[in-house]
């Protein structure tokens, strides 16, 4: 390389030393190549994609090829949350290649069986996250994918520290740039929660948009059974997940990761944009939700 030519001996020696050092570094053995290949292939083929065109195939998570489903009710593709539209992507804590031991699956099933709070405690530790394999993270939201529909939440609770504010006050109260979807017009109400980390706007008909700090660990968690979230790929500049059914929604308290149940949420689009995570709830169809998302100003 050039510095070899430009420099005298010692620097060249340093380069040789670095090359030798590289060979001595302790890098964990990669998983077997055919295992990786099979896992990748499984992810490329398993999603219930609307497009058979491989180039347009949305990401879908590893369906644990090679291991029977823990609950024996068939496999479910796991959505891949890693491809948010910006650099602040969240990824699932543990995606297993095909053929990993079934041990984690059992623990996962146990975890699914326990109540909300316990799941949150499990998820609060790195080990727990690894064990609860189907907790996925995307756009600051943890998605807990279970094989059976979760029990609906019948109560409603506000976000931590939530207070109503005038929509016009929002920009000064949030820790990030607040935007409004032009398509919905001005919101009829607004609130700020958790010290400005979450901003919510409301429109008539149960439509709400939550915007929250994208730099942090997940804020919300959702429990999802079938049908599984639908990947929305770059429609109008939005790449995210559409959760078409009602589902329990909770909040992860920043201080200790405690899961706070909030309410049964309506269909929701989740995505992230410019370092801010967003969830739009209450719009009826994915297409309309994406149109709203694309109209953020």
């Amino acid at each position, binding site marked *: *390389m*050039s*510095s070899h030519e430009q420099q005298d001996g*010692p*620097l060249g*020696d*340093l*380069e040789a*030393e*670095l*090359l030798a*050092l*590289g060979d*001595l*570094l*302790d*890098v*964990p053995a*990669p*998983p077997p*190549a*055919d295992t*990786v*290949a*099979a*896992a*990748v*292939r499984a*992810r*490329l*083929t398993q999603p219930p994609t609307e497009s058979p*065109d*491989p*180039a*347009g*195939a949305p*990401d879908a998570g*590893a369906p644990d090829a090679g291991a029977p489903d823990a609950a024996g009710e068939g496999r479910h593709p796991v959505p*891949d949350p*890693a*491809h948010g539209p910006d*650099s*602040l*992507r*969240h*990824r*699932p804590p*543990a*995606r297993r*290649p095909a053929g990993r031991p079934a041990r984690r699956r059992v623990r996962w099933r146990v975890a699914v069986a326990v109540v909300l709070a316990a799941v949150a405690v499990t998820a609060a530790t790195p080990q727990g996250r690894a064990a609860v394999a189907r907790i996925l993270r995307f756009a600051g939201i943890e998605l807990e994918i279970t094989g059976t529909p979760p029990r609906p939440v019948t109560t409603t609770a506000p976000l931590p520290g939530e207070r109503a504010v005038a929509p016009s006050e929002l920009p000064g109260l949030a820790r990030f740039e607040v935007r409004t979807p032009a398509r919905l017009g001005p919101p009829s109400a607004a609130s700020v929660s958790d010290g400005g980390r979450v901003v919510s706007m409301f429109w008539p008909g149960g439509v709400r948009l939550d915007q929250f700090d994208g*730099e*942090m*660990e997940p804020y919300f968690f959702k429990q999802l059974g079938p049908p599984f979230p639908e990947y929305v790929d770059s429609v109008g500049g939005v790449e995210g997940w559409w959760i078409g059914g009602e589902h329990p929604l909770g909040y992860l308290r920043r201080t200790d990761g405690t899961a706070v149940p909030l309410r049964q949420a309506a269909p929701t689009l989740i995505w992230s944009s410019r370092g801010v995570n967003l969830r739009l709830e209450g719009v009826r169809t994915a297409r309309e939700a994406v149109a709203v998302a694309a109209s953020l100003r």
Partner: protein
Amino acid sequence: MDDDEAIARSLDGDLAAYEVLVARYSALAHRTAYMLGAGNEAEDVVQEAFVKAFRHLPGFRRGAPFRPWLLRIVANETHNLTRSRGRRAELALRLGAEADERAPDDPEGAAVATDRRGRLLAAVRRLPERERQAVVCRYFLQLTEAETAQVLDCPVGTVKSSTHRGLARLREEVGNELA
């Protein structure tokens, strides 16, 4: 089947051909992800990168080398991973056990060598990110300057200068003496 053919077939939807590519480059991708800071999540990053690479394959310039193109995706995924956690990409590198086992007939010399390697590695870890990445790509991953430029998404000139500055800093920190 060479890369070009595998890519052409993959573009036609032949997943078996893509599997060949994945198998061919998975170990290098893993090493790259690990060394660029993915640490224990290198496996996830690699799987993600291959899935993403497949999706972006239609945009791959035919005839170009696949290796640096893929490694750039690996580097991006690694970057996203570390950034999404809001932390600096730690260089989770350690000296392997075999580094201590050389020259068993010269324990003192071996100890000195080990010490120097440890200091050099620590100095690499402390480099500013840009320089560290250039040094890791050039020496630990043994990529060419052109490959490094592609992987790090910067001009070759930047790779040259980052590497040069990084080497100068390392030299300053650990000196020139060879163990």
